[in-house]
C-alpha cells in the first residue's frame, strides 16, 4: 500500500512514493521546464514497471501546477504548497515552529505553534528572494549551482551585494567581479543578499522561533544555510528530504482524503502513454476576455481552467 505525492513547481516536479509509515520508497526529481504534464509523465516512467495501480492507495498534488497535475493524475487531494510543506515538516518533527521554504519562483515563511499554522507569508510581486535568482547568477559565474554552497563556505571576506532586486544585484555583482574580487566572496555575498532580502521581505514582522526548518530546492545550498544561521543566530535544520517536502505533504494529505472518502481517483500509471494536449484560447463571449486553457486526454476534454463564469470550467465537474 503506497501513497503518491506530486509537487509540480515552477522549476522542478518532485514525485514521491511513501509507504504506510511515511517512509520514502521512491523519490524522483525532474525539471518542469514549463511543461508540467510532460514532466509528470517523464517522472512516472520508472514507476510503471515496478508498481501496479492497485498498490497505490491515494494520490495527491501540490505546487503551482497542482490543478493540471490533479486532472492528469486523478488526484484525491489537491492542496496549496503552504499546507503541504507544513504537513510534511510536522510529520518529520512535531516541534517545528518556523518553516522557511525557498523554491524556484516562490519563497515562503510558515509560522507554526503547537502543530498549527498560525501565520504565513509569501514573496510579493518580485522573485528576487528566490532560487531562480541564484540559478541565474550561477549561470553568469559559470559555476554549477550544486557547487555554490561549497564556494560560499570558502569565503573569508564578507562582501556586500545589493539584494533588493535581482537586476540591481546582478549589476552590483558584475561591478565587483570587474574589480577582481574573489568568486567565493562574491557567492557568499549573494547568499547573504538573498537571506537579507528574505528576512526583510517575506520574514518581515514574523516571529521566527526555533526549531527552524529550511526546505525547498535552495536548502541544498549549504552557503544559504550558513548565511541564515549567521543572520538569525540560531540553528537552522535542513530535513533529509528538504527538496521533496511538498510532495511528501501531498502524499500525506491524499492519505487523509482517501481515509475519509474510502476510494481513490487515481487513474493508474497508463497515463504516461496517453496523449495530453493543452490548448489556450481567448473566450470572446463577454468583455472579460478570459484566457481559457483546455486540456485533452487522448482527444477527450478532461478539463478547462481560467474562465470566470464557469462556462468552460464547469465542464470539469462532468468529467472528473
Amino acid at each position, binding site marked *: 500500500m503506497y501513497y503518491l505525492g506530486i509537487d509540480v513547481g515552477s522549476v522542478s516536479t518532485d514525485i514521491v512514493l511513501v509507504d504506510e509509515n511515511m517512509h520514502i520508497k521512491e523519490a524522483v526529481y525532474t525539471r518542469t521546464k514549463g511543461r508540467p504534464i510532460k514532466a509528470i509523465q517523464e517522472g512516472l516512467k520508472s514507476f510503471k514497471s515496478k508498481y501496479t495501480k492497485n498498490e497505490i492507495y491515494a494520490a495527491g498534488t501540490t505546487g503551482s501546477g497542482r490543478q493540471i497535475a490533479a486532472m492528469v493524475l486523478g488526484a484525491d487531494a489537491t492542496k*496549496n*504548497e*503552504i*499546507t503541504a510543506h507544513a504537513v510534511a515538516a510536522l510529520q518529520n518533527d512535531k516541534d517545528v515552529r518556523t518553516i522557511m521554504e525557498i523554491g524556484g*519562483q516562490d519563497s515562503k515563511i510558515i509560522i507554526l505553534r503547537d502543530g*498549527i*499554522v498560525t501565520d504565513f507569508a509569501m514573496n510579493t510581486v518580485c522573485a528576487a528572494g528566490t532560487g531562480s535568482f541564484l540559478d541565474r547568477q550561477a549561470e553568469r559565474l559559470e559555476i554549477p549551482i550544486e557547487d555554490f554552497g561549497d564556494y560560499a563556505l570558502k569565503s573569508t571576506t564578507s562582501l556586500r551585494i545589493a539584494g533588493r532586486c535581482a537586476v540591481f544585484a546582478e549589476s552590483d555583482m558584475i561591478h565587483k567581479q570587474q574589480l577582481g574580487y574573489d568568486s567565493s566572496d562574491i557567492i557568499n555575498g549573494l547568499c547573504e543578499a538573498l537571506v537579507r532580502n528574505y528576512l526583510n521581505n517575506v520574514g518581515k514582522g514574523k516571529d521566527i522561533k526555533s526549531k527552524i526548518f529550511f526546505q525547498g530546492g535552495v536548502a541544498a545550498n549549504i552557503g544559504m544555510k550558513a548565511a541564515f544561521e549567521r543572520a538569525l543566530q540560531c540553528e537552522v535544520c535542513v530535513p533529509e528530504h528538504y527538496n521533496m517536502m511538498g510532495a511528501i505533504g501531498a502524499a500525506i494529505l491524499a492519505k487523509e482524503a482517501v481515509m475519509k472518502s474510502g476510494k481513490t481517483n487515481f487513474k493508474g500509471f497508463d497515463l504516461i502513454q496517453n496523449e495530453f494536449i493543452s490548448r489556450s484560447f481567448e473566450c470572446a463571449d463577454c*468583455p*472579460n476576455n478570459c484566457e481559457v486553457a483546455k486540456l485533452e486526454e487522448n482527444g477527450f476534454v478532461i478539463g478547462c481552467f*481560467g474562465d470566470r463564469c464557469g462556462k468552460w470550467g464547469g465542464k470539469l465537474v462532468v468529467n472528473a
Partner: protein
Amino acid sequence: MKITFPHLGNAYLGVKALFDGLGIDYVIPPFSNKTALEIGSLHSPEDMCLPFKINLGNYIQSIEKGADTVIITGSCGPCRFGEYCELQMNILRSLGYEVDFIVIDAPKEIGINTLLQRIGKVGSSSTKNRYGKLKAVRDGLKVIHMIDAFEAKVRDLSGYEINKGECKNLLNSCKKDLLKCSAPSEMIELIKRNEQKLLQIAIDKHSTPLKIAIIGEIYTIIEPFSNLYIEDKLMDFGVSTSRKLTPSWWIKDMVLKPLGLNSMDIKRASKDYLSINIGGHCRECVAEAVLAEEAGYDGAIQIFPLGCMPEIVAKAILPTISKEKDIPIMSLVVDEMTGEAGFVTRLEAFIDLLERRRQNVLSRN
C-alpha cells in the same frame, strides 16, 4: 457631448442611472480587462500604480467608442491619486485625443463655485428641468446604494447557500440585466425583484462559513479586475466576505467630510494604531482590521497596488493589530500580473489557516 468615466466596481450602474435620467449621452467603457490594462500600461509612466493604468485604458477604449468628455473625480490628495487627473489629461492630449475633462473635486480643495461650475457643465447638456435633474441625481444615488447593498448581502449569504453557485449566478445575472435597462426606475425595480429572489435562495442557517473582511486600497478592492476577482473566488470557496469601501460609501464619506461627521466608526477604531490621516485610505484600512475583529470575522485580507504609499504604512501596522487582536491578516500586492496560480495559492493557504485555527483551541468561537 458624450461622456465617459473610469470603472470602479458598481459605479457604472449609478452613473448609468444618472445619465439616463438626465438624458445625456454617455459611453460605459468596456469592463476593465487585459486590453484596457495593456493600453493603459503602454501609455503610463512605468512606475505608476495599477489603478492609473487601468483608468487610462478605460478612457481610451471609451474614446474609441465615441466619447468626447471624461469625468473623473479628483483628490488634491496626499497620495499619487491627487496627480491622476492632471497626468491623465496630459497623456491623453499628447496622444492626440481631443477630449474635454471635467474633474469633480471636493469643494474644500477647488472652491464651491468652481465645483458648481463644473457640475453645471455636465448639467447644461441635459434637456431636463431643474426638478428632472434633481430626480436623476436622486435616482443615480439610489441605484448605487441599492446595488452596493445588494452585492454586500449576496457576498455575505453565499457562505450559507445550500446549492453552490446560486448567489454568484444571481448577482451576475442581476448586473447583466441592469445594463439592459433604459430608465432609472426600471433599474430600481429590477434590483428590488432581485432582492426578493435572494430571499428565495435556500440557505443553511446552521452552517458557520468562514468570514473574511476585504480591506486595503480603495480602487484595487472595489474594481474586481484589478484584484483578480478575489471576492468571486472566495465565493467559490464558500467563504462569506464583506468590504466596507464601496462607491456608495465613498459618496457618503465625501458628503459628510466638510461637516466632520464622516467615518466616525473608522476614526474610533483606528485611534489606537493610527490617529492621523496620512493619505489615501490608510486609516480606513487600519480601522477595518480592528472592526473586522470586533465583528467576529475569522480574518482579513489587505489588497493594494505595488508601490501604494498609504497602504505600505498600513501593512506595517497590521502585524501589530493581528497580534494584539489575535486575528490573521494577509497582505496581497497586485500589479500588472494576470497569472492567477500564485494568487490562488495564497488564498487557499489563508483559508486553510483560518479553518485549522477554528478547529483548534486558538479559536475564539
